Every structure is written in C-alpha cells, then in structure tokens.
C-alpha cells in the first residue's frame, strides 16, 4: 500500500528548449518518494476533453530538497502539444513513480549511454546517478541537426559528451552507432544504455550483443494505465509477454525477442 501515488503537481516553469521540446519543472504536493533513472510518470492532459488517457513521460531530473521533478516533453501529437501549453502555477495530475529503473553501474565501471530523439530524457538522470559511482560516463546524443540538441550544459556536468547529427552540423555526421566512440571503443564499456527511437535502440543493441557487452534499453510502448492493470503495453520476452510499464520500461536486450 502507498507505493504509488496520484498527486496534483504545480507547474514551476515551462521552458521552451527548441522548436519541439519543452522542459517542465513541477513541484510535488508532498515529499517525493525515491525515484530512479528510467522511471516515469503518467501525466493527465487537462484542457483536452476528448483525450481520456494519460501520457507517460520519463523523469528527467529530481530535486529532493525542493521536492521538484522535471520532464522533457517533445511535441508529437495532440496530448503532448496541449501539455507544452501549460502555464506557471497550473496544476497537473501525475501518477508516480512508475516502472523499473536502469541498473546503476558499480564503482568505477565504464559506461556508455546513447540517446536520440525524445529518448534523451532519462539519460541525464542516469548520468547524474552514475557519476556518484564512477567518473567514466560517456554519452552519445544523436539528433537530426545541431539545434535539436538540448540541455547540453546539463549533461556536461556529469559525463563526457559526444554528438552526432544526421546533417553533420554538430559532432560526427550520421547516426549514434557511427560515432567513433561507439565504433571503436564499445568493447571497453562495462555497461551500455540506450533510449530513443526503436530503430536506434535496435542498432545499438545489435552491436552491444555482438560485442558481448551488457546493454539495457528503455521502451516506449503504447500505454493505457501505466501501472500494470490493463496489459496493453506488452513486449514479448524470453519469459513470455511482459508489461513495459511495470516489468520495464528498461529491459536487458538479452531478455527481449528482437531480431538483431
């Protein structure tokens, strides 16, 4: 009892990061429970009557001293659009904390986190927690173009940051798996993490599997409830269908049935 909560958070700020990404900082109605990187919240979209279901978003940052958490919202469809139009002082209802987190590295392990698209959100949080254990945190962020890269300075505090862009305007040209750090040093890492578009995660997983490196990915299956009752978000695994919202969203690639 009481492991999960539904609460009205107050919007402290809503900052536009670029064309399609917004950073929402939210104050919790009471003390926040422990939240780990990879976990998410399910957000009620107000002012959009015909939208009935909540929308899941990864926790980007937690500040326990001020009882706030942040989300990065990328505009995809109607729900995310309405969410980014929210004003300071507004209340929004969150179900939290949901899902299982990434495996935090052990002391001094070398880790590589790879993100692309809206999937970058949990990586900062992961880097921050990992930094407490190890100085060997590398991150490769992939995007279409230089202006798609967001919150860069934040990442730099906790990791050695590398970029790729499809148009070559920042960092290495191409996809994340084309980056020299990924191509040449993958074997050197103890743990590799990926989140972002399916194709990207599969590309990362394929290389990690071939190299025999521990690899976790964070899935974004469609969800109705987010807390394990509807069985809509399932992913086939070696141990049968699992719920992405409760058994995941983070999975070890060896548990998945991806054809890679």
């Amino acid at each position, binding site marked *: *009892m009481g492991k999960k*909560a*539904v609460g009205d958070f107050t919007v402290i700020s809503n900052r536009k990061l670029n064309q399609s990404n917004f950073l929402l900082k939210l104050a919790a109605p009471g003390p926040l429970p422990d939240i780990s990187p990879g976990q998410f919240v399910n957000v009620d979209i107000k002012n959009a009557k015909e939208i009935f279901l*909540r929308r899941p978003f990864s926790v980007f940052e937690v500040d326990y001293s001020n009882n706030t958490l942040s989300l990065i919202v990328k505009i995809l469809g109607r729900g995310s659009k309405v969410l980014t139009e929210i004003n300071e002082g507004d209340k929004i209802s969150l179900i939290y904390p949901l899902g299982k987190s990434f495996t935090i590295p052990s002391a001094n392990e070398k880790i590589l986190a790879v993100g692309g698209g809206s999937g970058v959100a949990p990586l900062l949080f992961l880097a921050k927690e990992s930094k407490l254990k190890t100085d060997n945190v590398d991150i490769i962020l992939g995007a279409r173009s230089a202006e798609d890269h967001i919150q860069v300075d934040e990442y730099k505090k906790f990791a050695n940051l590398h970029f790729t862009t499809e148009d070559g305007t920042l960092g290495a040209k191409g996809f994340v798996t084309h980056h020299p750090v990924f191509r040449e040093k993958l074997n050197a890492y103890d743990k590799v993490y990926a989140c972002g578009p399916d194709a990207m995660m599969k590309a990362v997983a394929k290389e990690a599997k071939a190299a025999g490196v521990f690899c976790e990915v964070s899935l974004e299956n469609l969800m109705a409830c987010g807390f394990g009752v509807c069985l809509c978000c399932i992913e086939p695994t070696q141990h049968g269908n699992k719920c992405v919202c*409760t058994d995941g969203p983070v999975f070890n690639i060896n548990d998945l049935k991806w054809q890679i």
Partner: protein
Amino acid sequence: MLASGTCGFAEEINDFYDVSQVGGIFLKGTTLRNRDGNEYPRMAETASGMLNAVGLQNKGVDYFIETTYPKIKDYNTPLIVNVNGSTVEEYIELTEKINELDKIPAIELNISCPNVKEGGMAFGITCPGAEAVTREVRRVYDKTLIVKLSPNVTDVSEIAKAVEGQGADSVSLVNTFLGMAIDSATRKPLLSTITGGLSGPAIKPIALRMVWQVAQAVKIPVIGIGGIINTADAIEFLLAGASAVQVGTGLFKDPFIPLEIIEGMKKYLEEHRLNNITDLIGGLQM
C-alpha cells in the same frame, strides 16, 4: 466496485490505497490454461475512450490458485473471479476449481469478451448459448453467480432474461462494444486484431440505456458498468435500475475514482435527504 481487466489482481490497486475501502474487486479474466493474449498493439485511444484487444492474457487458473490467491485472499473486500472459457466444459472445470477457494464469494461468468476468437462472446450473443453456460455452471456452483453480458446484441434484455431463467443471481453489464480504429496516414488498423472492445466515457449513454432496459426485464440485481468516472455517472446508473456499479477504464485515468464516488454518494444522500443508497435504485423520475 472495480471492473474486471482494469484492476489487475487487486494488488496493483492496493499499491495506491487499502483496497478494503472499495465495494468489491472483479479480478482479471481467468481461463483454464495460460493465455498469452493478442499481439501488440492492443490499445488505441479514441474520443473519450479507448479500444482494447488484450485477448484475456492470464497465466491460467492453476497459477491463480497457487500464486495469486494466497497473496490477495485476506484483502477485506469481496474478490470475484471473472471466469472465461471456450467451451461449456471449460467454464465448468474452471468454476469447480474456483469453488474450492473459501475467500472467493462469487464468480462473474464472462460470456461477453469480444477479443478472443473462440468462445467468449459467442456464448453471450445468443439466448441458447447464454442459457447453456449459465445452466451448466449453476449446477456446479452454489455461491453467487453473476453473468456478464455483451452489449453486442440486438436485445440485451432477452439475454438477461435467459440467464435469469437458468438461475443467475445477478447480471453485470456492459462489457466492451466491438469497435475499430484506422490510422488514416498509414491506412492501417491501429489494433493487431483489427477490431477490439470500446470502453470509457464514450460508451456511457449506451450502457446506461441497456442497464435501464435490463433492470426492467429481470428481477435479479443488475450491476451497471460502462464509462463511469464520477459520482454523477454512478448515480445515473443506480437511477436507471442498477443495484451496484463497476468502474473500469476510469481507473486508468485515476485509480482513486472509486473512493471519490463512495464519498460523493454519501454527500449526495445527505443533500437529497435520503437514508440509504438503495432508495436511489430504479428511482428514475418520469
């Protein structure tokens, strides 16, 4: 009460609050053997509701009895098993197993699941089918037998009368409406099964009408289900003749809705100077 398939096996809701506060929990549909359910995607959001095509994914009744039941049996609220089969024999065998469990005071016979190819709704859409399952299950089951009706029929009150005639103690309705969603951009169906079951506020007016019709047709208590998300919704169902209600898809929005409805009903009674919730049942003013 909490509707089957929307509250898991009660533990998931107990993660939010003490479930002894709700009127009863209808557990996720259970079958004789393990079922993996349908392929992903199983969900599509629609205006004020959603389509699902879960397809009764569950680990089978033996797993339920050995693993789930011991963990939940001491919750201080009625736990009702939602019983599913593809043949009458399966319904009987499953019921007999559930009958052995002390802390399960009732079963809800699901003859209305639109998401499985065999059985399920096939029994619920004809009077002879509904009669046959109800009759045979009644023979082996002395505790409370609730039959869950499909709205995907021409006249739901005919089916309700048929199962009442075979000894059902109560009927619950509605299950989901058969529906479909297409992505105009990709020209593909949004569900792996093409069609699925529609639920949520979108179905409330039709569910309410059906509950009203059935309440007039039968003498046994009717449990109202369909798009209930607040106190007013629940009261409307009682006025239409339901003796109790279940919240389903509303739980996805907010698992606390049932508690809010219970509080809201108490207030409603005070405001309308009524002593008992039963004073509302079938109290539609014409």
